[in-house]
């Protein structure tokens, strides 16, 4: 199985550290990229047009939150004619957020934190 490139967009440094460790443990992903918020990520993607296979996106972030990022990202995907599979990974358990996530076609699934090995393996298998 071909190894996937994964990207984490989250403002929580501890979460990012933990998730990176878990990703290494699965040995299913070839590369991991991380950003502190949506703004940083979109600037990078626009500049490089280098989209990862899988995106793990948080909602609550300073400067540009997950929703705002999705608006920009969906446009970018169309423009550069590339696609990524987006997973929302949020600590929120509010139903509104889950419903809102379904409105975005580019969002594959809404995942509640914590993200564990099983979930990461499933993601890898699905793609």
């Amino acid at each position: 199985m071909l190894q996937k490139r994964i990207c984490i967009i989250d403002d929580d440094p501890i979460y990012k550290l933990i998730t990176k460790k878990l990703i290494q443990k699965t040995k299913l992903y070839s590369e991991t990229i991380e950003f502190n918020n949506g703004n940083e990520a979109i600037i990078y993607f626009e500049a490089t047009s280098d989209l990862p296979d899988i995106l793990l996106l948080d909602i609550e972030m300073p400067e540009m939150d997950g929703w705002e990022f999705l608006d920009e990202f969906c446009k970018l995907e169309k423009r550069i004619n590339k696609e990524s599979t987006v997973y929302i990974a949020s600590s929120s358990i509010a139903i509104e957020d889950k419903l809102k996530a379904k409105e975005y076609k580019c969002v594959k699934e809404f995942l509640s934190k914590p993200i564990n090995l099983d979930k990461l393996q499933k993601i890898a298998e699905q793609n």
Partner: protein
Amino acid sequence: MSIEKKIAALISWFLSRPKTSGLIVFICLFSFFSIIFFFKYQALKQNEQHEMESILAVVKKNIEQNLKSNYAATITLALSIDDNGNPKDFEQVAKQIISSNNYIDAVQLVPNGVIKYTYPLKGNESATNFDILHSPLHRQAALRAIKTKSIYFSGPVELKQGGLGVVGRLPIFKKGEFWGFSAVIVKFKTLIKSTGIESFKSNKYYFQLSKINPITNTEEFFLENKSPISHKTFKKVEIPEGDWVLYIISKEQNYLLVFFPVIIIAFLLSLLCGFFATTLLKKPSELQQLVNLQTKKIIQSEFLFKSIFEHAGLGIVHTNSIDGTFIDANDKFCELIGYSQEEIKKMNFMMITHPEDLDEDLMNMQKLRSGEISQYSMEKRYFHKNGKTIWINITISSLWEKDERPNNHIAIIEDISGRKESERQILESQQKIKDLVDSIDGIVWEGNSKEPGITYISKKSEEILGYTPEEWIADDYFWRKIIHPEDRDWVIEHSTKHAHEKKPFDHEYRMIAKNGSIVWVRDIVSIYHESENIIKFRGILIDITKSKQFEIDLNNSLKLVTEQNKRLLNFSHIVSHNLRAHTSNIQSLISLIEMSEDQEEQNELLVLLKSVSETLNQTMNNLNEVVSIQTDINPIIEKLNLNKYVNKTIEVLRNQIIKNEVVIINTIPNDVTVSFNPAYLESVLLNFISNAIRYKHPDRKPEIELKTYTEDNYQILEIKDNGIGIDLKKNGKKLFGLYKTFTNNPESRGIGLFITKNQIDTLKGKIEVESKINIGTTFKTYFNNAPKENLHH
């Protein structure tokens, strides 16, 4: 009297028949003229007769005179004969005779009927020896003379010697024996001359002489103009000496002819008079006809009036205007007041008029008498004979002309008792309705769709709003004026819209009562079609101030609860999110530690776990701080000197201010106070000022400007910086949310503005933000001047 009447009748008979009268005039006049003419004619005729007779007498006398002279001449001649029968001195005697008698032309002696002697012989020679007894022409006359033994004239006859003449023969007897004749010859011309008829010749008469022809035995005429005379007026006289008849004949054939033109004139005159009479009579006759026609009309109208008077459905009474006594009244009037005709005629109108109405009636009557009015009408009361009061409507018209003295008037009386009774009943029921309306616990009103203002409002207005119905009615825009200024525009707009659509409506608004208090009313308006074009609005204004107050209180409580609930929800959401973020990290770390077989890695993970638990603690503290605001809904409020707190905050931030070279411009006066909680005020000021420093612009020195002013019920604190600014379009909604940060500034916690906002909200203030990226941000804090009062709502 009867004669006079007959004469009058006769005159009117004539007057009425102008043609007949004219004819009569003509006949009378013409008859009169005819009679006059007749008598005149008679007189004329008589006169003529007399004249003719006298002329004839004169002529006859002349003839007789003449004949006597002739006779004398013959005798004289005869005497010249001697006894022997021989004439003696015939010549001499004859000559004498002739000369003495102008009217004898010749004399003859005719012995034995033979002419022997003639004087003068000259011219008469042919007669000599003419035997007259044997002449058929003379024989008879000769014999007659012999027989009568007197002179007898023959002729006029054609003489033997020629010419027409008469011969007078006197038979001479000698010794009883016929001797012969002594004769005179008178020429006819001479004879006529001797009669003197020439002198009587005139235009009027002419003469004629006739004798019976002895041979033909017919009457023979000798004078000129021998036309028949039988039809003419004539007189005749017989002269026996010659058997002559002398006629005098009137030349006028008929007097009628003389009169004819006059008769014609008289006829025409009569005709003219008749015509004039006709014409003259015609005019009066026409006038008479007109008079007759008018009289007929008058009689008719009099009859009409009489029948109206007697049978009218209204009471009619003829009254003396001076003393008010009744002159005449019809049956209806009698029936109306219960008196008989006879009783009424002894009464006057003052006796039956109600004393309360009498003054007005008398005043009107005075005006009528003075000529100020010619008619008036009024409603008044009469006393019926039975003592009951009856209502009547009386119309009085004067019966005198303008320039006449007041005398009588006519009054028309209508019984209006029934109407008055219904009016009274209507008024009574109206009063009942009014009382009922006034007893309703709401202001009942009615208005017109076309004009502003109301037409009716019930008395309850005085009780509820303090305004009298009169105040309402007097001003068309009264309603608008007393609506609460804040509600006025929408209420008018709403009402106008519904009125236009003709839909009933129901709305609640505030009004300002007369005492200045605010009254909440519910106005329920219905549309009422009085007729096709007239639409009226009827409404009732109910005082709902009390229930409205409850409603407002309830709404306020609901709002508060909803707000708190919302905040609570938000809070719990945030709490769960933030706590879950940490707990999920802890969960992940623990599972990693369990999985790890490397001691070094485990230690590394434990450090991380410690760090997470610290962050969790921090979060718990923050949440505790927020909860304390949320739960303390009635914090202590004091009057705080704003400047004192600002200075205190600046002192707290002294190190940062110096480090960042912050310039603070404070224009807040020393005496400005705000009603706020001291701890909250410290927190609010600290948050704003520290934020202003934290989000300073990297290119310039921070500058913070503080000022204050009042607006409505608020004391406003304005804090203006020249920092990086906030994109309000993007982040405006989230600005005051919990854990919302918009920068990567590591000091951003996402909690300061959340708490500040909560503290200000709790004390009924508000925050406004103005910001431009790279220019700066201004926070305006509205401190409510009376936070406590409003806190109850």
